[in-house]
Structures are given as structure tokens and as C-alpha cells.
């Protein structure tokens, strides 16, 4: 008869995306403020790095991409409230699948098209051959 316990225990297994657990007004506002502060910090850093001569130039694109990914993470946690908690498993799995497709499409396209560009005969030579 211990099965009964599990039934009631599992009642609140899931949380809708964007939904916070039951928290007080103050802590919810504080959460958004914290997210806003972190996002402003990361945005300001990326705009600063893009225009500065202070850092090694080839590192700039990498820094911008890393800062962008960090800021997306901040938005997902503080604004969309997608967490790694057990009540969020479905949301995180859907997000993970979406990200897989995004990386396949973007990475695959740029990789393949870059190689095609390298391996193609330059356009002016191609025109010569067709004459």
C-alpha cells in the first residue's frame, strides 16, 4: 500500500516554461533585476570589446561569441525560468533538441559552404573555359 504515497507525491511533477515556483513578490522582482543587471553587464562588455584596441585582436570574435552565449543563458534562466530542476525535464529536453538542430544547421551550412568556396574554380577562370 506504499504505492499510494507515490501517487500524491508526483502530483506537481511539471512546471510550464516561463512559470516560476511559488515565490514571494520581492524575490521574483529581485530575480528579474538580477537578470537585467547581468544582461546589461554582458552586453556592455561585448560592445566594449568590439571597439577596443586593448586586447589581442584575433581573440575579439571568440570573446563576442562566448559573451553572447553567456547572455542567452542568463535570459533563459532569469527571464524564461528554464531550470535544471526535476520539474523542468520536458522543457530542458525540448530546448536541448532545438539547440542540436540549430548547431547542425548553422555549423553544417558554414562548414560545407566554406569548403565548396575553397574547392570551386574561381569565377573568372570558369568564364574563360566557357568561351
Amino acid at each position, binding site marked *: 500500500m506504499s504505492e499510494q504515497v507515490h501517487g500524491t507525491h508526483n502530483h506537481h511533477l511539471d512546471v510550464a516554461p516561463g512559470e516560476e515556483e511559488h515565490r514571494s513578490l520581492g524575490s521574483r522582482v529581485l530575480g*528579474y533585476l538580477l537578470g*537585467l543587471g547581468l544582461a*546589461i553587464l554582458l552586453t556592455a562588455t561585448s560592445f566594449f570589446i568590439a571597439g577596443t584596441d586593448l586586447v589581442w585582436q584575433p581573440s575579439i570574435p571568440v570573446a563576442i*561569441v562566448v559573451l*553572447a552565449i553567456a547572455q542567452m543563458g542568463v535570459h533563459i534562466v532569469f527571464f524564461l525560468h528554464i531550470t535544471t530542476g526535476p520539474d523542468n525535464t520536458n*522543457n530542458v529536453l525540448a530546448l536541448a533538441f532545438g539547440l542540436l538542430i540549430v548547431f547542425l544547421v548553422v555549423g553544417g*551550412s558554414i562548414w560545407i559552404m566554406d569548403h565548396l568556396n575553397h574547392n570551386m574554380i574561381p569565377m573568372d577562370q570558369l568564364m574563360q573555359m566557357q568561351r
Partner: protein
Amino acid sequence: MSVVAMAHGHADPHHLHAAEHEGPAPKRIVTGFGFWIFLLSDIVMFSCFFATYGVLVGETNGGPSGAQLFDLKNVAIETALLLLSSFTCGMASIAADMRNNLWFQISMAVTALFGAGFLALEAIEFIDLVERGAGPSRSAFLSAFFSLVGCHGLHVSAGILWLLTMMAQVFAKGFRADIQRRILCFALFWHALDIIWVAVFSVVYLLGSAV
């Protein structure tokens, strides 16, 4: 039978079969999850625009490149507007949960103003580019640029229409359960647009100016 039931309980330590007895999830969770799936598919669609832009970014056909065209000060203001609108949208979600009509309408109105300011700056930028002879038909790079950034702008426009609809619905019908679900979905949509804008300003504007 009880022996089978006990064995079943032990063979299922993660309670995988407990869900069979629970019935469907509450409607708010089903709606929110369904909208989350839509948002992810929207993000996949944006990734196609990003891939196109990434492939075509160098194909300027002798025309201007991003570094010659982009005004980073304008982009910084656009970014600030969209970020602040995301914050006020969060305040509107809290007000909706608290069923506070006044704060909900104020936060949503401020969100709409920030969004409209963003759209106005983007429109001015686009008109300026076209007048300088750098319209979408100038080169493959500019076609991809206008498609990607314009698609995001269209999403923001649709978001503002949805926002105004939600203000009117709350005004006319109050915080009913179905209206609350629509507010949840709208907030998800608006925050997701801000995430896509982070990718746009980093990849298109900052990388385009830095390289």
C-alpha cells in the same frame, strides 16, 4: 497479486509508470509546453536565416561591407530598449499573477513603448541604408542582412500587436484562466525575441564591425 504489485514497485524506481494513473497535466502546463515547442521551432527557423547570413556575409559584390555600414551607437540603443522591455514584460507577468490590473497595464504599456522605440530605430536604419544605395538588392550580403534583421523586426511587430491585444483582453475580461495562459505565452514569446536579438547584435553587428 500483491506480490506482483510489490515487484512492480521495486522494478520501477523512477516511477515511470506512476504517470499512467495521473491523468493529463493541467491545461496551463500543456499550453505553455506547446508554445515552448513552437518557440523552439521559430528559433530553428531563425537559425536558417543565420546560416544563410553566415554563408553570404562575404559576398558583397563590390558593394559596402558591414563594417562600412553599421552604426554601433544606434545598435546599442536598440539593444538597451529591447532589454528593458524584456524586464518590464517580466514585471507584467508578476502583476498578472498577482491579479493587479493597474501594474499590469502600466508594465505592458511601457513594454509596448520600448518595443515601438526599437522598431522606430530599426526602420530609420533600414531607410538610411536604402537611401545610401545599400538596399537588399545591392548584394547577396545585404539581401541576407535585410532578411535576418527584418524577420526579427517582423516578429517584434507581431509581438506588439499581441501585447496590445492582451492589454485590451485583460481590460475587458479580467484575469480569467484562459487570459492568464495567453499572458504566459506572450511573455515567453517576448523573452525569446530578446534572446534572438542577442544573437543578431553579436553575430551581425559586433562581429561584422570587428572583422
